[in-house]
């Protein structure tokens, strides 16, 4: 979707909402609902667009693979489908996360429902977990069994062949920190009178979910049947695995750092340290996601050879 359409949509909703609120007396909350819904539409529609040649060239440079014309179309279709699944999941996740707020606005008598998702920062986290789930689903649904001769290369595939091992350490570490922080709050409430520990516990749970999701997803990616034992097909298959792994682990890292920042903020004494962790932790997580999903170059063959 073009940026002009996006901004035009926003302007129309905003203008119409203001006019209706001012002259007809419509609740401005409806305008907020319309704006959020528009954002979801923008995300989903944007991801449904074509996977351009430029994008494909950038992808092949990132994973250092060459492809001929028929394979180019196959890869384009695969990447397009994976992107659509990821962003549709993000849109769905945002919708789920905002539902309690919507309900609170539309039917205030049921506003107790908002207590179900009681954390103010739940929206980005639910969007992140949805992105990770979308990546996982897109990886699982695109399993293609090789046709013809049943061949297997006697090379053991590992997590580290597709995404750096240090990301797993970061995931485990941040999850551990979050769990410890939650345990500290829950075990000694007298030292943390400003919180009942609920926020820290839920944040820690999110980080554990992120870790489990990454482990399960990586297992699915690594063990997915190989399409070919050698040649261009093998290289492309490995690059697709690396791409899926980067997106999945990126979303999980962002989610985990977000959760652990929230949990740490509950346990750290008020003031600058807590504030810094709370402000920079999530942004660092999002930066990691962006780097993993969009920037990091990766050549599976070279990594495998270096580790052999």
């Amino acid at each position, binding site marked *: 979707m073009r940026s002009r359409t996006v901004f035009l949509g926003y302007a129309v909703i905003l203008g119409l909402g203001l006019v209706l609120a001012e002259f007809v007396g419509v609740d401005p909350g409806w305008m907020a609902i319309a704006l959020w819904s528009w954002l979801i539409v923008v995300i989903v529609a944007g991801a449904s667009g074509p996977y351009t040649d430029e994008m494909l060239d950038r992808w092949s440079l990132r994973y250092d693979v060459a492809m001929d014309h028929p394979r180019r179309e196959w890869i384009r279709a695969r990447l397009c489908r994976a992107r659509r699944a990821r962003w549709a999941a993000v849109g769905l996740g945002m919708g789920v996360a905002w539902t309690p707020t919507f309900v609170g606005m539309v039917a205030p008598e049921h506003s107790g429902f908002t207590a179900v998702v009681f954390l103010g920062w739940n929206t980005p986290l639910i969007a992140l977990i949805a992105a990770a789930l979308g990546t996982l689903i897109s990886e699982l649904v695109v399993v293609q*069994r*090789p046709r013809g*001769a*049943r*061949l*297997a*290369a*006697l*090379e*053991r*595939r590992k997590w580290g062949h597709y995404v750096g091992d240090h990301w797993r350490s970061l995931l485990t570490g941040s999850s551990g920190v979050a769990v410890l922080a939650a345990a500290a709050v829950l075990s000694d409430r007298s030292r943390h009178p400003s919180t009942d520990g609920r926020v820290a516990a839920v944040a820690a749970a999110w980080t554990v979910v992120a870790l489990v999701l990454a482990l399960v997803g990586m*297992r699915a990616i*690594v*063990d*997915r*049947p*190989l399409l070919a*034992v*050698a040649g261009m097909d093998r290289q492309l298959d490995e690059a697709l695995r690396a791409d899926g792994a980067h997106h999945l682990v990126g979303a999980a890292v962002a989610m985990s750092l977000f959760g652990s920042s929230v949990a740490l903020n509950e346990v750290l004494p008020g003031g600058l340290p807590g504030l810094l962790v709370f402000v920079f932790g999530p942004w660092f997580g999002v930066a990691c996601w962006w780097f993993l999903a969009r920037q990091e170059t990766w050549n599976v063959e070279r990594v495998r050879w270096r580790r052999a």
Partner: protein
Amino acid sequence: MNVVSIDSSSPVPPFEQLRMQLSEQIRSGAITAGTQLPTVRQLAGDLGIAKNTVVRAYRALEEEGLVRADGRAGTTVLDIGAGGESAVAARVAEATRRYLAELERLGLSGQDALDAVRRGVAPT
């Protein structure tokens, strides 16, 4: 690169096909000692066979003393050269085992086998 394949039209069961190919590659030195074999899930997925088939083949290789299964570390190829059995000797032993099994199926004794070999190698 070392490769294994399964021929679904072959009368030889997939487990035996896999065992034979792995055994041959290990004994010939194509797969070196210390090499980690693929996980059961990975190999079963790539070959499109049941996990139990791969487990059975790996177990047979372990019984032959060619690999060691070690939980998290997976299945590792052992150094068979150090055990005194060279690759050629191992292949001769394997051929002998198969020969004796065939003779036994025909109802012949070990002595008959020896006689047959002597006749086979005697100058004509």
